[in-house]
């Protein structure tokens, strides 16, 4: 195992070589812009200095809201090597709804205690609104009129709970009013007790209250004279914080230290991982605010001093053939993607696109971040073998951001190992029983792909429901231990303690071990996975809660998942009775697509009281899902 290095040290080492990034953009035929690591390093140093000159101090959290890869990476590296805490946050989607994006992002920024945002010129004015609200003066509503939760009617300041600025958390009478999620009051009501509408007609969501936010900076302006970085981060400092999702109730910021980053990346690059060599070229379309895109495809190449060719995610989604064309043209050897990307290539790459492809160079076609479906891998190999793709290049893997990125890898150069097991035994008895081979490959069985063995120096165990170790081929929660386990969730000790117990990271994923290899077969936590991204149901529920015609607090979202197929996204709501069913279902689909870019497979409208709730009024997601799956909600 190589010596552990900070991100700054790895980038400085890479800067001695000739390799670097190639940033692709525009339409096919463009060759891309080469930026050697020497220049990436120099630019990152300048950004770090500019951030310091802007007034940031060591340990301050800097939120990165940047879609452009070069801007994102130099800012992340610059902030990280200067001792600031760089946090990656998803930029707004190209077809998204900016108002809801800003509302969600405000929650994340506030809970992270972000002191600065680095974004683009275009977004600065909108993000400034979050900062403006944290000043001490009265700020009129954007519509010119409404009180925004800063002062009482009488004009006297009412301090917030933390003794700081008033955040609309107390009523005039001074009693605490809990927010919808049971958390603090979010400024959603006016002093008179009537609801205050947001600009878009929805309820006020406490959108402009990020009290610690002081600076909103445009990346384009972040420059400073060349200089050598004079503060060197220590291995146990935070390298960056990755927000896995902007959950309204609990945004989860995964703290990755330099030491855990180095442990994971060195294992990925090592002989039991991809076995990085001098001739490797990484090619990726993955978003950089995603662990596989950032760690696997942008940072791992830096630690190996090897080139990385990066293209914008939209370029791939619009024309999946562009990914394969980039591999072919740049002689890519390593490229990872979630299952859905291979599926898009099968469905959307046209025969005429195959003509100029040569994929014989592609030695590691990594697959991870979401359940792997054997038929997808089969179809991809069948379609692209004509242009040199080898099925043995597939490298199924398992991991999660809380473990930096990777936890297990299948052996290289092997056809994916598939187990066909009885679906009933798997879901009802939690045992993986081989399905009879000569029986029809049909409904009674499910095919699972081996995700391989733990990284060297790391441990994987399966825990039974009673918390003890599960026997071979018994399904239980996957738990991980070793140097890649995150330090914790940023500013959330309770969730950290719940997730990491006795040194074991509880992943919330279900799996079993067979002949020493891990098979992932479901999830214990109620996360929805679609197109390689995790969505928290609370976020979806929150987003539809103010759709006209939905009864407040009576929306439930979940993924109805079965082994062997992707999540089926279901939203169950109780209508308030004022909007026709078709219109309401359309409005709910539209809202979720606009905010999350996610297609809802089914909207179920149920009578009043049909959404299961606890005695304290919180929706019961698992119970609602069970009722749905038993057909009781139809």
């Amino acid at each position, binding site marked *: 195992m190589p010596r552990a290095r900070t991100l700054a040290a790895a980038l400085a080492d890479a800067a001695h070589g000739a390799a670097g990034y190639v940033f692709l953009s525009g*339409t096919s035929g463009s060759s891309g812009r080469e930026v050697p690591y020497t220049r990436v390093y120099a630019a990152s140093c300048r950004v770090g200095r500019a951030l310091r000159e802007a007034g940031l101090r060591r340990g301050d959290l800097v939120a990165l809201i940047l879609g452009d890869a070069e801007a994102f990476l130099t800012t992340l590296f610059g902030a990280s090597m200067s001792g600031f805490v760089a946090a990656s946050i998803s930029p707004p989607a190209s077809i998204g709804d900016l108002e809801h994006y800003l509302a969600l992002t405000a929650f994340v920024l506030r809970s992270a205690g972000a002191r600065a945002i680095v974004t683009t010129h275009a977004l600065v004015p909108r993000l400034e609104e979050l900062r403006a609200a944290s000043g001490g003066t009265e700020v009129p509503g954007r519509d010119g009129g409404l009180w925004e939760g800063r002062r009482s009617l009488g004009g006297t300041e009412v301090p917030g709970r933390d003794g700081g600025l008033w955040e609309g958390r107390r009523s005039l009478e001074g009693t605490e009013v809990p927010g919808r999620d049971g958390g603090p009051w979010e400024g959603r009501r006016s002093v008179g007790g009537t609801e205050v509408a947001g600009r878009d007609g929805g309820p006020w969501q406490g959108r402009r209250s990020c009290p610690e936010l002081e600076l909103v900076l445009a990346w384009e302006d972040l420059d400073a004279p060349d200089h050598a970085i004079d503060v060197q981060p220590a291995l146990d400092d935070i390298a960056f914080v990755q927000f896995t999702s902007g959950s309204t109730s609990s945004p989860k910021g995964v703290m990755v230290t330099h030491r855990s980053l180095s442990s994971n990346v060195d294992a990925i690059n090592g002989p039991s991982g991809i076995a990085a060599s001098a001739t490797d070229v990484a090619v990726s379309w993955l978003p950089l605010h995603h662990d596989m895109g950032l760690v696997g495809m942008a940072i791992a190449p830096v630690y190996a001093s090897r080139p990385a060719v990066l293209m914008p995610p939209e370029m791939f989604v619009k024309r999946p053939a562009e990914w394969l064309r980039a591999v072919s043209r740049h002689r890519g050897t390593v490229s990872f993607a979630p299952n859905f990307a291979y599926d898009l290539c099968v469905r959307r790459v046209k025969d005429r696109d195959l003509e100029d492809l040569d994929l014989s160079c592609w030695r590691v076609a990594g697959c991870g971040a979401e359940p792997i479906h054997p038929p997808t891998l089969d179809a991809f190999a069948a379609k692209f073998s004509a242009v040199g793709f080898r099925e043995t290049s597939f490298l199924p893997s398992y991991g999660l951001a809380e473990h930096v990125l990777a936890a297990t890898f299948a052996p290289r150069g092997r056809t994916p190992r598939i187990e066909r097991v009885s679906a009933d035994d798997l879901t009802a008895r939690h045992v993986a029983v081989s399905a009879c081979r000569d029986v029809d490959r049909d409904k009674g069985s499910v095919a699972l792909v081996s995700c391989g063995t733990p990284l060297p120096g790391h441990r994987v165990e399966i825990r039974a429901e009673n918390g003890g170790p599960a026997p071979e081929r018994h399904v239980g929660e996957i738990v991980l231990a070793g140097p890649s386990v995150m330090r914790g969730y940023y500013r959330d000790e309770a969730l950290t303690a719940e997730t990491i117990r006795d040194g074991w990271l509880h992943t919330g994923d279900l799996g079993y071990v067979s002949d020493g290899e891990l098979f992932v077969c479901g999830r214990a936590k109620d996360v929805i996975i679609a197109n390689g991204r995790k969505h928290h149901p609370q976020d979806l529920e929150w987003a539809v809660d103010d759709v006209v015609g939905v009864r407040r607090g009576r929306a439930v979202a979940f993924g109805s998942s079965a082994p062997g197929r992707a999540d089926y996204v279901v939203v169950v709501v109780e209508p308030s009775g004022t909007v026709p069913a078709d219109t309401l279902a359309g409005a709910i689909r*539209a809202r979720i*697509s606009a905010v999350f870019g996610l297609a809802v497979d089914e909207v179920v409208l149920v009578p009043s009281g049909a959404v299961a709730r606890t005695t304290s009024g919180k929706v019961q997601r698992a119970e609602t899902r069970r009722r749905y799956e038993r057909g009781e909600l139809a």
Partner: protein
Amino acid sequence: MSLPAASPIEQGVIDVLKNVSRRPVEPHLEDDLVAHLGFDSLQVLEVVAELEDRFDISIAMDEVSATRTVAQIVARVTTLVEAQSQR
């Protein structure tokens, strides 16, 4: 009374939408891609690529979010096709 025949561009746009949709749809001019046809962000970009190929035009990314109903798409494609033929 008979309905006016759809223009070739309108018919082409509707064909693309039907092909891209994962479930059977009958797109109407006033339909919104997301609210009525249930497209997600991946499918919206797939529609853009298919329209570019079929009509030999180029649609900029920043136009995508502003173009949401079938009628808006038909209008945008018509403008781009006309600009193309005048070159």
